[in-house]
Every structure is written in structure tokens, then in C-alpha cells.
């Protein structure tokens, strides 16, 4: 892997983030009404002192470019503004909420890829078999179900019929003082339903994609070579074929990450998961714009990082790309 490739991807990621900052800035200016009122949110109703303070802080009486400069400077110093509703800096608010979101999104991503690819590989062995049909039906169904509704249906099911998983929150209140492992198990227990709900949409998509991709790879000459060597069917499928079939899966996994965050927003709201999505929902109800835009900034940053990681892993998985810039 060439260092210059890594460097260029990093710079490009930073430029994209700069774009997000400028977009945030523009959104507040483009919104109807006085920007100071917008920033103050619901609290700005009649509080003239607060509005004046905001005008001075953001230089709202100065030219637009100067305002952008001030805004950029603030962001660079890690200052994403102040939430007047929560009465806390936005960066602090998000800092407290980003962990649970990353946990949820990554678990769902891993779960959907592992299960989906496994199903897809098995289905590819018999392209016209029952499992193949099942996978394609589930993929169409999974695509059509609103994720928040799946969550609610699971809550109804697991709250009343099979009460084996907690349906709300991330931690049990009674375990406040417990040790690390007890807490970890408790969080994992709470994670099951939200992660599964979120994974469900993508699981079937990965299954369908990896089935198609495997079918294509299984017809190639090097698979015949592997069989001619005397490799077992399992080695042919999971070593020779899957490694090649995983390349398009990686691409899609990278592209899906943004949608996964959008889905997490809804899932967090349904399951009261204390993450950024829930924060976004709460702050939108309160018209707390600095917080909303902060969440937009951080969520975009997560997508940029995910894209970067996808690019890198793609190069690791496909030796033909290494050394190219």
C-alpha cells in the first residue's frame, strides 16, 4: 500500500468534511428568519440578551465570508456551538452519545455481513434451490419493511410473548455499580434487538449480492483449477471463491454505511438507544439547530472514515490494486 495513496485519500476526506462544515454554515443562513433566532432555537423567543450574545459570538453583523471564517475557526477548535436547550456545548453532548451509535452501527454491519454472506454463499451452491428462492424473497421483503416498524413489531413480540431480551435502553438501571464484565454482558443483551432490527434490512441485500457475486466467481477458470488440484468443496467455496466474491460486497458495505446511520437514527428512537440518532430526534423536536448540525457533522465524519477504511480494505483484498495510486 503506497503512502501517497493513503495521504491523498486522507486529504480528500478532509476536503469533504470541510464541505460539510460550509454546508452547515449555509443551512443556517438559508433558513427563513434571523440566523440568531435559528441558532438560539426555541430559547430565542424573547430573550434579547441571548440573541445579542449569539450575534457577537458568530459575528452575524459582519460580512458573510467573515462569518464563515469565524465558523470554520470555531469548528477547527472543536467548538461546534452551544446547545441552548441542553445548555451544554454541542461537542460534549455528541461525545457522550457517539459511542452507543458506533456500537450499534458496527454490530449491525458485522451481523448483516456475516449472516448475509453466509446465506448467499450457501444459496450460490444451488442457484435454483429452495434457499436461493428464500433469499431473494427475504431480500425483497427486507427492502420493503420500514425499519422503525420492524423494531416496534419486535418490541411487541419480545415484550409480551418472549420476554428474553430487553426492549428499551442500553443498560439496566439496577446494575449501576456492577463490574466491567457484568456491564458488558448487560449492554450486549440490550444490543440484540436494535442491532438485529437494523441488520435485517441489509442482511438480505448482502445475501442476494453475495449469491450473485459467488455465482459469477464460481464459473471462472481458477475455480476449475482449484478443483483440479483436489481442493475440497468447502475450500473451493470459502477460500478460493469467497475471497474474490467479497470485492463487490466490500464496495457495497462501504456505500451502505451512510444508509446504516440513517437507519440507526430510527432504530435508536424506537428502542430508546442513547445514541446520536436519539439526540438528533430530541433536538429536532426542540428546534435545537446547533445540536442537529453537530450530529450531521459527526455522522458525515463517520461516513468519510468508513469510506476511507473501505478503500484501504479493498486494496488489501485485491492485490491487483496494490501499488496503484
Amino acid at each position, binding site marked *: 500500500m503506497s503512502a501517497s495513496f493513503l495521504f491523498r485519500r486522507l486529504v480528500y476526506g478532509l476536503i469533504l468534511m470541510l464541505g460539510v462544515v460550509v454546508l452547515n454554515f449555509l443551512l443556517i443562513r438559508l433558513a427563513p428568519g434571523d440566523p440568531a433566532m435559528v441558532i438560539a432555537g426555541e430559547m430565542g423567543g424573547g430573550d434579547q440578551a441571548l440573541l445579542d450574545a449569539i450575534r457577537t459570538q458568530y459575528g452575524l453583523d459582519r460580512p458573510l465570508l467573515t462569518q464563515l471564517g469565524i465558523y470554520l475557526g470555531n469548528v477547527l477548535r472543536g467548538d461546534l456551538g452551544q446547545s441552548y436547550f441542553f445548555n451544554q456545548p454541542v461537542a460534549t453532548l455528541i461525545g457522550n452519545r457517539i459511542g452507543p451509535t458506533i456500537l450499534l452501527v458496527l454490530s449491525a454491519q458485522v451481523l448483516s455481513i456475516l449472516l448475509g454472506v453466509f446465506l448467499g454463499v450457501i444459496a450460490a451452491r444451488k442457484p435454483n434451490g429452495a434457499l436461493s428462492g428464500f433469499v431473494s424473497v427475504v431480500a*425483497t421483503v427486507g427492502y420493503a419493511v420500514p425499519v422503525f416498524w420492524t423494531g416496534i413489531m419486535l418490541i411487541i413480540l419480545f415484550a409480551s410473548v418472549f420476554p428474553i431480551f430487553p426492549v428499551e435502553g442500553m443498560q439496566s438501571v439496577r446494575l449501576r455499580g456492577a463490574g466491567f464484565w457484568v456491564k458488558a454482558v448487560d449492554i450486549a443483551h440490550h444490543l440484540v434487538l436494535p442491532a438485529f432490527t437494523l441488520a435485517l434490512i441489509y442482511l438480505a441485500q448482502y445475501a442476494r449480492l453475495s449469491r450473485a457475486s459467488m455465482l459469477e466467481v464460481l464459473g471462472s477458470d481458477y475455480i476449475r483449477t482449484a478443483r483440479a488440484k483436489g481442493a475440497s468443496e468447502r475450500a473451493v467455496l470459502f477460500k478460493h471463491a469467497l475471497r474474490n466474491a467479497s470485492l463487490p460486497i466490500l464496495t457495497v458495505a462501504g456505500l451502505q454505511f451512510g444508509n446504516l446511520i440513517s437507519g440507526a*437514527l430510527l432504530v435508536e428512537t424506537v428502542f430508546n438507544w442513547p445514541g446520536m440518532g436519539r439526540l438528533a430526534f430530541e433536538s429536532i423536536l426542540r428546534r435545537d439547530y446547533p445540536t442537529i448540525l453537530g450530529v450531521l457533522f459527526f455522522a458525515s465524519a463517520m461516513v468519510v472514515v468508513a469510506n476511507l477504511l473501505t478503500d484501504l480494505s479493498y486494496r488489501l483484498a485485491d492485490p491487483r490494486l496494490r501499488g496503484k495510486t
Partner: protein
Amino acid sequence: MTEAVDFKPESPAREAWRMFRRNIPALAGVVVLTIIVAATLWGTFFYDGNPYRIVWAPHEAPGMTPDFPLGTDYLGRDIFAGLIAGGGPTLAVGAAAAAITMVIGVSLGALAGFYGGWIDNLLMRITEFFQVLPTLLFAMVLVTLFSPTLTTIALAIGIVSWPQTARLTRAEVMKIKELEYVTAARAIGARNRRIIWTVILPNAAPPLIVSATLTIGVAILFEAGLSFLGLGDPNTMSWGLMIGTNRAYILEAWWPVTFPGLAIFLTVFSVSLIGDGLNDAFNPKLRER
């Protein structure tokens, strides 16, 4: 087959229609979607109910009272009336948002693919930028900033959804512009705009039609998500809103959230069955997969 053999090749559209007609899941999708659309358009003529008014005791279970076949919600409002009234805005916003998505996506994609060079470069960077923004979150921000009406919601969904369409269009246009009939059109001196409209886009139509169908499904889910979060137009009933407002009481009554969810699912499911059917009809070779 009649005895007189006709050697005239079938037009692609006719052939696609013939394939589509034999695709039973896709036809089922057409039937279900037609029923849903008809119910939202003319349902009020046959079923007289006000979705906003409190008409009965709260949480009446479905099937208990013949007047309210799907029961009532936490306030005692008629759920069936809500389904009929809520379908219109959901479908309208979905269709409008899909149209906006296609207009933005196809224009930018066609420009980028046809002209290449710096135009392509610039448009693709813009596309990548929009793909970095998590769609639902960005749409939420837009809707809150510009006050939620059906128009702003459709616009917001369109603005966040176009990048994929643009990429698809660009790829198709780049493929088609290398083909011989484009060179032929150039040779007779056709202008670029004319070539794009009369030669390239009609030939790129099949994948774009499929993509448009699937975009409608995504847009409906999007609208449902926004109204579920309470970001829909506050003055209109919608399926997502029904789920959102009844969410707090799901452990007491399952039906007020279940039926609107089923309605969303059935709509999107039939749309995507139609999309899959069109895809198979346009690409008969892929069916063997």
C-alpha cells in the same frame, strides 16, 4: 404460434411487455398497488369516516365493532379511516420525491457522462459529497429548517436521494455514447443536446425506468420515516404519523401501529415487485441467474 411465420423482429418494448406479462409476482404487485391507489383516491366514497375525529372508545380491538373494522387508536379515532386518508399524502410525496430524484439525477448524470472531462469531474465530486451526508438525517435537517409541508418534504427527499441515480445515468450514458449510432448521429451533424435527448436517453431508458420504480419505494419509506419522527406535514394524516403517534401504547394495543405498517410494507413491496419484474423484462439474459 400461427402457421404464417412472421420474421419481423419484435420491438424491445413489446418483448419486455411480453416478458412482464408472464411474471406473476410483478403482476401481483400491479394488482395490489392498483387496489391501494384506488382505495386512497376513492375510498372515501365507499367508506365514510373522519380520520381526525374521536368517534369511539380508545383502543377498540379490530373486528369487535362492525363500524370500525380495524379498531380505534389511543384517542378513539377510526384506524381504517386513517389508512384511507393517510395513503394519499404518503403516495403523493413518494411519487413527487421520486420524480425530483430522477430529474436531478438524470440531468446531472447525463451531463457528466456525456461531456466527461472537468464537467464530469466536478459533478462527480459533488455527487460524492452528497453521498457522504447520511440521507435521512440531512432530510430531517432540511425539513425542520424549511418548515414541514408536503412540498418541502418531497423536495428534501429528492435532494438527498439523487446521487445513486446520477451515478447510474452517468455509467449508462458513457456506455451508450461510444456506440455506433451515436457516432452516426454526430456524423450527420446533430447537436449535443439533440443527441442526448433523442439518441442517448431513450437507449438508457430501461435501467432508468427500473431505477425510478425502486426510487418510488425508497421515497415512500423515507416519507414514512420522517412522519414517524413527527416531521411530516402536521396538517395531514399519514401512515408514518399513525405509527409515530400510537407508538407509546404498543404494549396495550398492537393494532394501531400494525395496520399502517402493513400498508407501507404492502405498497413498497408491490412497487419493488414491479421494479424487479421490469428489470427481468428488460434483461431477459439475467433471468437465468
